[in-house]
Every structure is written in C-alpha cells, then in structure tokens.
C-alpha cells in the first residue's frame, strides 16, 4: 500500500534523502530470511515509526543501516554514502553521524552511568582521549551528561554503576548516549519497551525535540498509539517485507488497511491491536 507520504516522496527524488534501501535482502546463516527485498527512502527531518510483529525484521533493518550487518543482496545508502565495500574508517565516520539505541544489551554494566553516556562520543575522540575519559572526567563532561540525564529524569544516577539500574533506567541511559552523540540520524530499537507510559512520554518527547531540531528519527515501536501520536511517517514490516508506508492518518483507516491484505498480513494488524 502506498500512502500519501510516499507518493510525495517519489516526487522528491534524492533531495534530502538520508537513508535509502534498494531491494535489501538479509538472510541469516541458517537460511532465515529476515528481510525480503526491502525498498524505502527516508528523508531529512522525518520522524519514522517502524511497526510490525515480532520477528518481522525491524531490528535487522536498523543493524543493516548501521553497517553491523551486510545485506545478502541489494544496496543501502546512508547520508549519501553506499555501505557496499565501505572502508572501516569511513564506516566509523558515518557511524559517528548516526546513533543507534539497541533493543537490549545496550549498556556496560560495570561502568558508571556517566561513562556509559559518554561512550556516545567515542566516534569523535582519539583513543588517548577515550583512555583519559575512563580515568578522569572533566567538569564540562560531567555537566553535559548531567544535563542529558536530567532531561530523561535520571539525573540523580550520574555516578551509579549502570548494572545496578532498573531495566527502564538502563534503557534511558542508552537513549542518553545516543542524544549526547549529537548525530544527524538517531535510530532506536524499541526505546520505550520497558518503561511505564508516563516515562515513555518523557522519552518520546525527547525524540520529538531532536526531530524538531532537524534530526531524522527512526524508531522501532510496538506501541501503536505512541507511533500514531508522535511519528510523521509509519512503516509496517511483516515477514521481511514492507506492507505499509504512509502517514499515521492513513494507518488509522484500519478497515481499509485490513481489507487490502489477505492472509498473513492481516495478522499484522491484529497483533498490534
């Protein structure tokens, strides 16, 4: 199904394009087809929500964009640069311009919260600088981290050991790290999966604020209501295929939506209801 957004985007061509996937296929060892020919273009300043049932390939998509995985076929371009055959140094520079908040396993439990957040800077500083950061933090660094943590309402945890935080707090530390990196693209894999609805709002508002500053935000979400409320564009994945791409308003027209899919895809809507 092609929504209004995509139609207008077709006219935009490559102007303002930040991410483009062309027929991206990802087959994991063992023959699991996680992405099955995905083509999509994302533009600067969009706030994109990716929905889809568990196992649809959402996480795989973000890891492909990040260069952690390489596509089995097809092409991926990020910030105008093709990831095919990209040199290690170039990939690092590209990564310092985009942040990824992983679904889980996203904090180093034995390091302090401050160090975990400052890891967002690792792409921009030298190894010597990184070593210094491990031993000693400057006044500015402390203030910077405290400010970001404060916005996510965990300002009091600055020097706690990260492993001692609750799941939701750890998730916010990971979000804080992504914010501190000050990237052009910010991607988050289910960033509000383990926080209460009110805290989820706090986190989503931070993403919205970043978006209003001109950053492209891409969020994998399971909470449809949040996606409808905050995102400017929705993608729905099912079994590695893009089954919806359009405005949240169009997604709301669930009856039309449901009627346009038979069999498997119908389950997508039910799973999210």
């Amino acid at each position, binding site marked *: 199904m092609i929504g209004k957004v995509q139609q207008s985007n077709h006219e935009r061509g490559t102007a303002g394009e930040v991410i483009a996937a062309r027929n991206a296929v990802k087959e994991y060892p063992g023959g699991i087809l996680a992405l099955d020919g995905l083509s999509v273009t994302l533009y600067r300043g969009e706030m994109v929500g990716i929905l889809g049932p568990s196992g649809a390939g959402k996480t795989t998509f973000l890891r492909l964009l990040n260069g952690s995985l390489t596509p089995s076929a097809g092409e991926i371009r990020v910030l105008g640069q093709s990831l095919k055959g990209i040199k290690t140094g170039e990939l690092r520079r590209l990564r310092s311009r985009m942040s990824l908040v992983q679904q889980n396993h996203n904090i180093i439990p034995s390091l302090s919260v401050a160090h975990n957040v400052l890891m*967002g800077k690792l*792409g921009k500083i030298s190894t010597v600088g990184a070593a210094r950061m491990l031993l000693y933090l400057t006044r500015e660094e402390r203030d910077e981290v405290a400010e970001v943590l404060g916005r996510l309402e965990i300002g009091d945890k600055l020097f706690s050991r990260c492993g001692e935080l609750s799941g939701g707090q750890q998730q916010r530390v990971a979000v804080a790290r992504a914010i501190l990196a000050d990237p052009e693209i910010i991607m988050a894999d289910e960033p509000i999966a383990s926080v209460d609805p009110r805290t989820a709002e706090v986190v989503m508002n931070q993403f919205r604020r970043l978006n209003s500053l001109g950053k492209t935000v891409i969020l994998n979400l399971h909470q449809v209501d949040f996606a409808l409320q905050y995102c400017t564009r929705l993608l729905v994945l099912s079994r590695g295929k893009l089954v919806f791409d359009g405005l949240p308003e169009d997604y709301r027209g669930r009856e039309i939506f449901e009627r346009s899919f038979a069999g498997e895809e119908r389950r997508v809507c039910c799973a999210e209801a």
Partner: protein
Amino acid sequence: MRKPEQSLDPGFNFFNWLVGLAVLGLVLFSAGQTGFSPQAFLEAGNLKAMGRFAAGLWPPETSPDFLKNSFKLIVETLEISVIGTALAICFAFPLSVLATRVRGEEFSRQAQGWVPWLLRWITYYGARSVLNLFRGIPELLWALIFVVAVGLGPFPGVLALAAHSTGILGKLYAELFESVDQRLVETTRATGAGELAVLLFTRLPLSLPVFLSYTLFRWECNMRAATVLGFVGAGGIGTQLIISMKLFAYNEVMTLVAEIFALVVLVDLAGQFLRTRILDAPSPIPADNALRRLVRCLPKV
C-alpha cells in the same frame, strides 16, 4: 527432528566404550614405559638412603648467619616473582590485543576486501605464534638461556618468568577479550568507536575481574617457579637449596623447605584474598574507585 525419547535413552554407544578403553590402555602403557614400581620404595638400599636423608633433616639449621642469608634469598625470590609478573603483564597486554580475533560481518572478507582481511589474519596468527613460542618453553629452560645471555643472578630469573608468563597471560587475555558479549561490542562500535576504544570501554571493563584474577594466579605460580630458578643459577632461594643438597647438609635443606613452604602458603593466601576481593568488588573498575578514594583522602586546598 530428533524425537524426545531418543535423547532420553542413548543406549549402548560403541564409540564411547572404545574411547574409554583407549584412555585406559594409554595410562597402563605409560606406567610401564616410565618404570612405575612402588616396590622401589621398599628396596633395602633405597630405604637406607631415605633413612639417612630423613635423619639428617632434624634438627633444622637455625644459626643466625644461615637464617639471615636464607631470609635475604627468600625476599629475593619474592622480588623475582613480582617483577617477572609485572614485566609479563607489560608484554602480554599489547600482544593479546593483537591476538584478539575481531568478529562481526563488517570485518568479513566480502565486506572489507582481500587486503585488510589478510593483514588482520597475519597479525592474529603472528601474535598467537609469538605467544605460543613464549609459552612453549618452560621457565627453567628460559632461565638457562638467560643465564647464558646476561650472566648469573636474579636478573635472568626475572627474564625467565617474564618470558614464560607473557605467553600464558597473553593467551588468556586474548581469549578473555574475545569472549565478551558480542552484542555489547556491536553497541560500542555503533558509536563509531575504533577497536582500541572498544577494548577500553567494552572488552576491558567486562572482563576486568577475571583479568585481574588470572594475573594474580599467575603471580602465585611465578612465586613457586621462582623457588627453583636458583638450581640453574638464576637467583632466589634455589641458589642455597642446591648448594645445601650437594653438600648433604640436610638440616639446612629442612630450614629452606620450611621457609619456601611458608612463603608459598602466604602468597597463596594473599592471592586468594585479593582475588575474592576483586570478584566481589562493587565496582570492577578499581582504578576508578581507588582514584576517587585517593582524591577524597587528599586535604582540601
């Protein structure tokens, strides 16, 4: 698909029995080859020699001169082990970094091309081979080599322990760094961090307790090894031990053995204490903690 009942009853496994029999055969064969004969203890000549040795052990030598000298050598033994281990850490750490295999699709040959891929494997196998060489030669053999190279005394002993331990610690460190949670490594790389930054912020903090525990254990082993370095002229308490043995001064031997035993027990206890402290530590970044504590202790200016 395997059925569940199949996994419950393995039945008679011919292969397992064959392996068991082969191991037993190997043990018996080796015993025969090495002249294993408990009755050797009971032969008249051997009994008399043992009797003479045991009788000579008592009373232990306690003259102040001998005690003072042996105490100096005991301290030297301890020093050799400490410096040897410290040197080993210095060499093992960089080598282990080179010998750490990086994983991840971004490092595959398809993604990177032939040249970087080949370079990485050459470094990896090169570093592993160096470590194997260091580890493959026992301490005593290293000591012999270094005695020839730098002369008698504790210095060749230090080098011998450092060389052998470099091989062991380097391999252990490399395997520790490799075994950390790959998804956390990926998370750190996602920030744009290079592999050295990944080492500092992910591999090291995640493996630090075990890292320190291995290192302390290696120090304990080096302590024990240092007691016999003197046999080949590489310093420490062994220097006196071999002299007393050759002079049949068994009462001196008794004193020395008692001292060595006390030292080894002490070092083992110290190592055990430190290792449990490290493994239970609330923050596995002791440097960070220690620094903060130090700063707190300093007088405010």
